[in-house]
């Protein structure tokens, strides 16, 4: 566990002048040490109509752990390790250099070959290639950035992943999916009624969510590739809070059959309804532990909302997970199952908390207000959440050591209900 050192940064004004902007990502706090890195222009960029090095260096910069150096004044731009003159890059104070070249393949595909070198050790750290269709050039660049990030930080990168979020603009509710850098936002749902609680299937191919399009909350499963939508829970009363089992075969959901919200599981294709927990209070916000053995959930059975756990097969003893604070809700796991993130009401301020499940140690990561819907990045290093500044809601992210902070907002509309998806294959 890292020693927690909360660094408070002034909130940066998030007004954007670009009317057509998607998610604007703004770094409001960086790591203590930022590795100076040079990403050299890839030869063959023109063939894919994108500057791959720009996508890579933007990714690294946004992580808060790297400082991207300007390579425009350099005498030469090596495209592979045999061409590099280390002294030139040492003079630029680059600690690492990424270089590469793009070659067209038969059948409209491309191959980007890349190398990462340590300038001081004059050593090759990583080399590889990505084969891709032209329309997937950004994804290929994100995958290269992930390799660079992992070699230099020791943690897997998460640039080649997507996030889901809900935007409310005027009377319309949109469920968007965008790349981790905010690019390629696409509306999965564009509705006159609210949409909440998006949940990625473990393989990233489907999204479960709650839509109010029939004037009541109903759970849908939407297949991203085909656009096919299936109602998986439309029982009397509310149907909400879907969460996938790790094998993708079941969903935990919340129904109000009787009166209060109670937790059930169903097959991911619908049917197979099974009651998991029973209480006289509200039980909601279920989530499976990554090993599939437990369902953690929010319940006010003890008077105030707290997080509890129960065997995923239902029945048996219910045990309490959170003990401090009068309101702990919306639990989500890190992929390794070691950490839990949730929302705590800390003196009237709703803040993002993370809890080390082995030690029980809790850290508050956000300065609060009305923070909601936290989720871990696929590598467990960052928590993405929804927040509100003044009257506008936007997304924010914070590294689990509290140092690196980003703000993600759209120029128009309220953004909320964030969920970080799995890595893209």
């Amino acid at each position, binding site marked *: 566990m890292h020693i927690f050192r909360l660094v408070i940064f002034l909130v940066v004004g998030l007004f954007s002048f670009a009317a057509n902007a*998607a998610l604007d990502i703004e770094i409001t706090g960086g790591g203590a040490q930022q590795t100076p890195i040079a990403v050299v222009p890839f030869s063959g960029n023109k063939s894919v109509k994108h500057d791959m090095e720009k996508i890579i260096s933007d990714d690294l910069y946004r992580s808060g752990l790297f400082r991207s150096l300007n390579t425009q004044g350099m005498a030469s731009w090596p495209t592979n390790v045999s061409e590099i003159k280390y002294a030139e890059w040492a003079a630029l104070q680059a600690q690492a250099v990424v270089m590469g070249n793009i070659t067209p393949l038969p059948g409209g595909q491309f191959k980007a070959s890349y190398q990462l070198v340590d300038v001081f050790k004059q050593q090759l750290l990583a080399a590889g290639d990505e084969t891709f269709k032209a329309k997937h050039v950004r994804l290929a660049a994100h995958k290269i950035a992930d390799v660079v990030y992992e070699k230099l930080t020791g943690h897997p990168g998460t640039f080649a992943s997507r996030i889901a979020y809900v935007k409310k603009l005027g009377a319309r509710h949109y469920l968007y999916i965008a790349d981790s850098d905010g690019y390629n*936002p696409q509306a999965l749902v564009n509705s006159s009624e*609210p949409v909440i609680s998006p949940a990625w299937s473990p393989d990233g191919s489907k999204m479960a969510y709650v839509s109010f399009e029939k004037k009541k909350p109903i759970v849908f499963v939407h297949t*991203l590739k085909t656009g096919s939508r299936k109602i998986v829970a439309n029982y009397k*009363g509310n149907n909400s809070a879907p969460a996938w089992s790790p094998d993708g075969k079941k969903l935990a959901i*919340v129904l109000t059959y009787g009166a209060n919200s109670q937790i059930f599981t169903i097959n991911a294709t619908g049917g197979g309804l099974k009651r998991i927990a029973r209480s006289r209070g509200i039980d909601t916000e279920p989530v499976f532990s990554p090993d599939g053995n437990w369902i953690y959930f929010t319940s006010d059975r003890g008077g105030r909302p707290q997080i509890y756990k129960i065997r995923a097969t239902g029945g048996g003893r219910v045990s309490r997970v959170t003990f401090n604070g009068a309101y702990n809700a919306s639990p989500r796991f890190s992929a390794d199952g070691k950490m839990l993130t949730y929302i705590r009401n800390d003196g009237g301020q709703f803040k993002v908390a993370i809890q080390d499940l082995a030690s029980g140690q809790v850290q508050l990561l956000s300065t609060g207000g009305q923070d909601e819907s936290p989720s871990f990045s696929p590598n467990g290093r960052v928590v993405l959440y929804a927040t509100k500044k003044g009257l506008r809601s936007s997304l924010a992210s914070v590294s689990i050591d509290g140092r690196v902070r980003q703000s993600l907002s759209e120029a128009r509309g309220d953004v909320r*209900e964030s969920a970080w998806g799995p890595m893209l294959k």
Partner: protein
Amino acid sequence: MKNTTKLHSKLLIAAVISMLLVACKSTPMKSAFPADDRALPAAADDRALPIAADDRALPDSSDIKGTVINGSTSSNMSELNDPDNILSKRNIYFDYNSDAIRVEFRPNIEAHAKFLQEHGAAKVMLQGNADERGTREYNLSLGQRRSVSVKKALNILGVSDSQIETVSYGEENASAYCSFNSDNCYQQDRRVEIVYPNE
């Protein structure tokens, strides 16, 4: 330290292109954005939506197919909407984190109970709501508890369960303009709306 980077992509273009793709196989398009005036079948349930298969016109993430949903409009039942009739008063308000019905709303609930008993075919939807404080799903549950509270009051007054459905909108209909801890504003959001779906 404070750095700023702006990463913009072409939301409108991407959105418009995807909407064109959505619309071109269903109905003619009148305007590209916003989407309100287009008439895709509402609530497409479990059918695959008629979306163009050619994804080459889209940027990178063209492996995502979306859907457009538009709500329906409704007709009127005059007795229920006459502003001089207590039946037109459809909101029952609640205290913070409470589902207890205040005495002041008693006449209101009694009037709706009488109406429902006199109109055995009428059905009512009790839509619970919460203010924005707390998580969305917890507030959905809290709104549900409020709607059930009104249902129980109607039951006690003789209304049959078959005429009542309780649902919750949680904080989804909450005002966007309540600043933090302004309770007069939040009060408006903590309510159950009595809705007659067939009006």
